[in-house]
């Protein structure tokens, strides 16, 4: 098994391997020893959202006096046709997420707001590196925090041994490292990268109009070309290329639901991760009825699928959803948002002490914004992850500070997240 993930071993993937990647579950091939010794059987599923989730469009500070001035009619509100779902007297949830709202009210879901990794630049690749490696310097590590945490948890019994496999070229960084990894792959292929197609079209328009014409004609991208989905019915949006609709919803639900079914088994893995792409909403973000709403709806469906497929194991489950950074506080000139800083982390699971929005809220006034443009980070994401690893899985606090999130001695694990 190679632990040197960055060195790419020349290899052309088989069809099966090609389908790995977004939506595939990567999990530890052992059970955590200490938690088992206590007679508990905890599950932890980490979901990485690649592309930078707009935290303010997911959980909006509708009670903040500066909110309406910040986002105007592009911001979520608690009235109108697409009324946000109230969480407390400040925050409300995107209306595309009724499952998460239900779990929140049952104290089985929580939101950490104004949270960020220690990364303070705005490159996706570097931001994902820091998020997944758990190391402050981008590109400095070939292993991920989750894999190093597995080592810290001490292996007990091996889970279904037939499924274990060596770290391969498509293993996400968060799960790469010395601990043995196993994987499960959704049977369907992720929906075609419509976002990639629209970026490519944009590049062609600026550099090679002939290729742009060709791609437009052959790719049937009329809706994206118009760049305007306002006033379209949800059915039309779902059927429009570039707008993730039913296909993405089905894909998230299958990937997350099957991962949960797998983790619920007596001989299944207990600690795993999967990733979903597509959150980079620079233009026509559509927080209430467009693209982001569709993505959040798909994520909400994933929560529902995990809850039902975990069955009896749900009460011992924690799901953590994190992204590399947030987006600009204000809407940009193309009805989207650009790369920002703080965002939300979403937590769910029967083992959670939920029903709370956990935030040292910085506010969204002009002066309160980070570099006058982004939501200011007031909580370190590592505190959240360390708290869950310590209290849910019984990882040693010193090992967490030394090996899993090196240099995080000053970042205390967030206490009381787990019931």
């Amino acid at each position: 098994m190679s632990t040197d993930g960055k060195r790419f071993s020349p290899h052309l993937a088989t069809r099966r391997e090609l389908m790995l990647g977004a939506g595939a579950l990567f999990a530890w091939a052992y059970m955590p020893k200490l938690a088992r010794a206590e007679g508990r059987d905890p599950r932890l599923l980490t979901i990485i959202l690649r592309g930078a989730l707009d935290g303010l469009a997911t959980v909006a500070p509708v009670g903040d006096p500066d909110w309406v001035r910040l986002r105007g009619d592009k911001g979520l509100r608690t009235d109108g046709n697409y009324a946000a779902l109230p969480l407390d007297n400040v925050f409300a949830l995107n209306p595309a997420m009724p499952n998460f709202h239900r779990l929140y009210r049952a104290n089985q879901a929580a939101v950490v707001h104004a949270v960020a990794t220690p990364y303070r630049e705005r490159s996706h690749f570097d931001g994902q590196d820091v998020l997944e490696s758990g190391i402050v310097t981008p590109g400095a590590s070939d292993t991920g925090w989750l894999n190093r945490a597995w080592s810290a948890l001490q292996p007990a019994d091996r889970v279904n041994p037939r499924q274990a496999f060596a770290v391969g070229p498509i293993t996400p960084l968060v799960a790469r490292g010395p601990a043995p990894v196993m994987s499960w792959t959704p049977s369907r292929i992720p929906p075609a990268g419509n976002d990639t197609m629209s970026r490519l079209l944009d590049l062609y328009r600026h550099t090679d109009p002939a290729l742009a014409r060709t791609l437009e004609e052959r790719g049937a991208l009329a809706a994206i070309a118009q760049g305007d989905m306002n006033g379209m019915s949800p059915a039309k949006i779902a059927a429009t290329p570039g707008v993730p609709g039913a296909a993405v919803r089905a894909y998230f639900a299958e990937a997350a639901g099957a991962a949960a079914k797998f983790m619920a088994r007596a001989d299944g893995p207990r600690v795993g991760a999967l990733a979903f792409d597509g959150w980079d909403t620079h233009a026509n973000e559509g927080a209430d009825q467009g693209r982001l709403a569709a993505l959040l709806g798909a994520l909400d469906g994933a929560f529902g699928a995990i809850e039902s497929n975990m069955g009896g194991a749900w009460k011992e489950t924690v799901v953590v959803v994190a992204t590399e950074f947030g987006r600009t506080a204000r809407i940009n000139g193309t009805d989207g948002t650009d790369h920002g800083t703080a965002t939300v982390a979403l937590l769910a699971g029967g083992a959670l002490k939920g029903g709370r929005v956990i935030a040292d809220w910085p506010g969204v006034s002009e002066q309160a914004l980070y570099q006058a443009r982004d939501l200011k980070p007031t909580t370190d994401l590592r505190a959240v992850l360390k708290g869950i690893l310590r209290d849910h899985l019984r990882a040693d606090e010193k090992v967490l500070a030394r090996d899993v999130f090196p240099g995080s001695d000053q970042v205390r694990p967030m206490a009381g997240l787990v019931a």
Partner: protein
Amino acid sequence: MALDVPNDPKAQAAAALHRFGLGPRPGGLAAFAAHAREALIADISKPNAGAIGDDNLLSSAEAIRAAYDYRQERKAERLGRRAADEQERNERNERNEMANAARQMAAKPDNANPGGAKPDVKPEMQALAAPIAPSSGKDDRPKQQPGVPQQIFLDEARARFDAAMNADIGFAERLVWFWSNHFCVSADKGNVRQLCGAFEREAIRPHIAGKFADMLFAVEQHPAMLYYLDNAASIGPNSDAGRKRGKGLNENLAREILELHTLGVRSGYSQADVTNFAKVITGWTVGPARLDNARSGEFFFNERMHEPGPQRVIDRDYGQADVTQGEAVLRRLADHPATAKHIALKLARHFIADDPPAALVERLQKRFLDSGGDLKEVSIALVTAPEAWQAPRSKLRKPNEWMVASMRAVGMSPSDVRPLVRANTMLGEPLWQPPAPNGFSDVSDAWADGLPQRLDIANRFARQVGEMIDPDAVADATFGPLLSRETRETVTRAESRAQAVALLLMAPEFQRR
């Protein structure tokens, strides 16, 4: 539409690597930039330029015999199985009849047996009355392996991809691909599949920096070409075989030699020239594989199939009585000014532009004629022509060029050749399988249709390598000063490394050369 080449030696060197080569590998651009013309010339001046050094590949004669043996074995197996099935069927019918008889006996009330004693059924008959399991013969056979012809095809494909991946610059390989497409054969034709690779290695590769006439001879006398364009079975009507069997002429190869391989269409030859030339090359055939002798699977001149007598081809009489008659016609065609023009235009169109500058075509044509068809000299004239360096990058890379350039750029090399063969097919350029004898198109428009398929392939590549590489570094290493600001921004702003890689491979700089 085209991308300009900046007037700067480094940018021109980078453009040349893409235009004449297979695209830079990591570090290739830096190593090449200072002496681009010299490096291109050196690439085709090596003693074995274009050769593949794989001793395990079969010669065409060996491939013909291997495929023949395989078919014979399969035939014997089929016959054997048929006989076995037949026997089994007969036995089963017999058993069923016996079982039915047993059942009837069991069911029949037997007045002769008062007291209700069991009828006297023999134990073996009871056993036979049990349902008979379906024959498991088919399931016992080993899993389907590729047949010998397909296995040879895949081995050759593998060697060809390896040569492309391992080339420093790839100018020699590009010339191999060009000439292989000019003199194409097709794996679609039954007995050609196992010969496509050997054809390229035996008839094309040794001559890319040699004489055009030598390549022409090797091609037109190669079993793959003789099968593909039907000359192996073409018989002179007045030959021994023709008179005896009442079979005759096939003009296919003669016509395509004139129209596609040498002079070019509408260059002044008539239907009579085609017919006469076809007669000239009757008897150019392949030794039957079933004959286990030295000729088996080799080119040989079969006098008994050859049309006797002199023939007139394009205003000249050829009185030779044997294989030298056809060779004399080929030699003349190789030296013909129309051939020089045809080849010059095709080379310039392939490497420089769909409508190449007339001055460049003229210069290549003149070099071809002055050097007696020396392809090394013609290729040097191509890479030293100022037009070749200043012309904007307007050509869309052909699918296989693009795929190989992509793999070279990200530093991956395939462990299994089959996905590559499938991808080539998906992109409209199935390996060694052109739709017609004029080969795959060398005009960009023909390939534009496949752009969405390229994006699909790019996404798959990117999913595999995206996590492992630094897209910005690959962009720099691949394009240097040719990288546009817009492409750089698009790559940098991608939402994931995988997306960045896909966008880079699809960028205009990558699609065009």
